[in-house]
């Protein structure tokens, strides 16, 4: 399947996240999920970025929190709401808000 996963929390039980497989997988960091794209806890990137997936972070939520594009991990692409609509309709068939 082609699955887009929304991560909106910084701290959550990641067992669903870790186990779900998808031929094509996108992970979109929104709300407090953006910390996974920006914060290096104890100098390490978020373990969520180890999954084999395309990663995106919502610029509006990045900026709400006070982060800039330059704070974003190299694995993650910055998108806005308009890009998100395109991702939803063109890239992923099913969506999961964890």
């Amino acid at each position: 399947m082609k699955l887009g996963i929304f991560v909106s929390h910084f701290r959550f039980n990641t067992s669903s996240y870790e186990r779900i497989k998808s031929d094509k997988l996108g992970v979109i960091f929104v709300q407090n999920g953006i910390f996974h794209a920006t914060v290096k806890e104890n100098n390490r990137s978020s373990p969520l970025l180890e999954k084999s997936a395309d990663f995106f972070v919502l610029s509006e939520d990045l900026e709400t929190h006070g982060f800039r594009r330059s704070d974003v991990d190299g694995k993650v692409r910055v998108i806005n709401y308009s890009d998100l609509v395109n991702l939803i309709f063109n890239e992923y068939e099913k969506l999961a808000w964890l």
Partner: protein
Amino acid sequence: MALKKCAFIIDKAPYKKETSRLALTHAIASQSAEVYLDDGDNIEPLVAFIGDGILNCLKNQRALDIYGVTSLEMHIKNALLLGLNVYVCKEDLERLGLSEDSIVMDADLIGGESKTKIVSFEKIQELMEECDHLMFF
């Protein structure tokens, strides 16, 4: 004439959030969605409990006596009674130390038709792939 499959995946524990309750009430409502659909069109729901979500399935929940709210146990029995497909992840039962005995397997006291199916996560993954739409609760 078409059938669309919707998977209601519950991965959060009950009572601290309303989400698992809403999953079940929405899933049950699928059965009356026909009123808004063309003849022959239909929605088929499936409900799967994974991760901490399996804690919704414990027997002997006393939420109604104590807090005056219907228990998740009652909602699950209701779903089984109406013939919905209800799945529980086997690996998560093992991980949290729960047995088949400790969870709601049927609605027998109120004359249920279907039984809870304890299946591997792999099977739940397959079900998610087969469905048209996915919702997490």
